């Protein structure tokens, strides 16, 4: 017994960048993708994870002092560091990831067979939303892997039901028959938009007010490019923090680097995972031929409409300002701004591409994220720490927060529920 315990402790001590490749290689062999593909996929994912953690280190060392200086200088309290999609590192790196993937596959297939949902969750990459939440619950319950998996599966099951409600609208607007988008904060944005758009359509004057997406893109389009957005934000934060010219120029480049490199690292993780899960995806698709099924795809397919980027460039500064002035909000969104275009993609089918309405809906939608990301900071930070990341800085008081998934509305309530078990 003791030998077994020692073996498990030794294995967990390897850290996620070693464990995850091993787990994925085994999963790949079970899914019969072939040895070479399984090894390549597993190792690539480990590389992506390690790269992601490196970038987060850069974010912490650049942003933590800057955000603190800004807070002191402006007399506000914003001390949490925004790491946003670093949560993908929790999602693919926490110890329950393989159990979560298999559990969701089983539950989803059962639900489709029993006609409880039409959404066939083939997009394994998008499990990360539920898996990140599972990681928070794992941390929240002091390392309970089973509760983590249950929480993650619950989140993803609710996601497939939300996808059932929104699929037709996405299909019509984007001209993509047969798809469904069950992704976390994106599909929730659609549900949020439904009543708000209904109300906005009844406000005189607002009903027909619109702005031309092309015009906005021409004038502000540059801000829509991650590098430029990061550069400008870095400058503004540096200046507001009372930095010297040399310092704020440097901060601008660091934030620009973060905005470009963080998603690239996430994409390396995807590059590893996608080939390993392709065969299971193909199998599920063939299995349910002839039934009306919404095949789950990533929210990235919703970004085509010009109003998406136009609304996003208006929302970027508005969200930063709103987070700065709202009392009690501890995280200034920087990396998290990257999720806004995905929300916009989920809302434009409901606003029929109206830029003004999309901006209003999403500015309101961002408010719970601002508060929930603040409220969930402890489990969020603990998840990183329990995976062996940033322990030293965390023990010195570093707090890591995010909108996607830390600020997630549904995720917040699931965390509250599972917090009862801790």
């Amino acid at each position: 017994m003791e030998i077994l315990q020692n073996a498990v402790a030794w294995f967990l001590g390897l850290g996620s960048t070693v464990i995850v490749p091993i787990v994925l290689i085994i999963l790949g062999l079970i899914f019969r993708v072939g040895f070479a593909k399984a090894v390549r996929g597993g190792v690539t994912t480990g590389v992506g994870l390690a790269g992601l953690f490196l970038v987060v280190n850069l974010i912490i060392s650049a942003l933590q002092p800057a955000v603190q200086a800004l807070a002191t200088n402006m007399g506000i309290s914003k001390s949490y560091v925004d790491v946003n999609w670093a949560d993908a590192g929790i999602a693919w790196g926490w110890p329950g990831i393989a159990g979560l993937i298999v559990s969701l596959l089983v539950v989803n297939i059962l639900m489709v067979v029993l006609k409880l949902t039409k959404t066939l969750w083939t997009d394994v990459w998008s499990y990360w939303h539920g898996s990140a939440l599972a990681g928070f619950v794992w941390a929240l319950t002091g390392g309970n892997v089973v509760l983590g998996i249950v929480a993650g599966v619950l989140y993803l099951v609710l996601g497939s039901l939300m996808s059932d409600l929104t699929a037709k609208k996405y299909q019509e607007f984007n001209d993509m028959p047969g798809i469904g988008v069950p992704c976390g904060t994106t599909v929730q944005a659609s549900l949020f938009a439904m009543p708000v758009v209904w109300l906005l359509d009844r406000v005189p004057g607002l009903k027909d007010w619109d702005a031309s997406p092309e015009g906005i893109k021409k004038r502000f389009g540059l801000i829509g490019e991650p590098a430029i957005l990061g550069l400008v934000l870095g400058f503004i934060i540096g200046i507001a923090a009372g930095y010297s010219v040399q310092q704020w120029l440097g901060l601008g480049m660091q934030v620009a680097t973060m905005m470009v490199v963080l998603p690239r690292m996430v994409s390396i993780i995807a590059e590893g995972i996608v080939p390993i899960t392709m065969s299971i995806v193909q199998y599920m698709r063939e299995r349910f031929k002839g039934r009306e099924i919404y095949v789950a795809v990533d929210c990235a397919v919703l970004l085509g409409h010009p109003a998406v980027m136009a609304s996003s460039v208006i929302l970027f500064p508005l969200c930063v300002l709103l987070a700065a002035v709202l009392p009690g909000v501890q995280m200034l969104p920087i990396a998290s701004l990257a999720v806004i275009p995905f929300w916009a993609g989920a809302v434009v089918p409901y606003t029929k591409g109206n830029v003004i309405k999309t901006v209003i809906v999403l500015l309101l939608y961002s408010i719970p994220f601002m508060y929930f990301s603040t409220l969930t900071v402890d489990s969020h930070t603990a998840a990183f720490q329990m995976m062996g990341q940033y322990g030293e800085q965390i023990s010195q008081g570093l707090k890591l927060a995010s909108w996607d998934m830390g600020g997630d509305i549904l995720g917040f309530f699931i965390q509250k529920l599972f917090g009862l078990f801790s």
Partner: protein
Amino acid sequence: MGKLIVVACGAGINTSTIAEDSIRERMAQEGFADVEVKRILMADIEGYLTRSDLVMIVSMMKIFRTFDVPVIQGMPFLIGSQEEKNVLLEKIVNVVKSK
């Protein structure tokens, strides 16, 4: 000169990876050694449009503008059956051959 196929999606993370994987595999089967398949963010596409080796765009989103090179809707890579995927790959092979 090499030939470049860009696969564009909203984030350059997941959906384009799935298509890129299938296209690359097929290009290797056809023995096209000079074809580069690159996944990108749709927001970054301007920089690729000026490249003289660009032969086609595979888009994972609905497109609301026109381009000088052929554009193929890549959605079947995500949700299509094997036959639908093959039809799409055949189209891509033909474009590459014609350039």
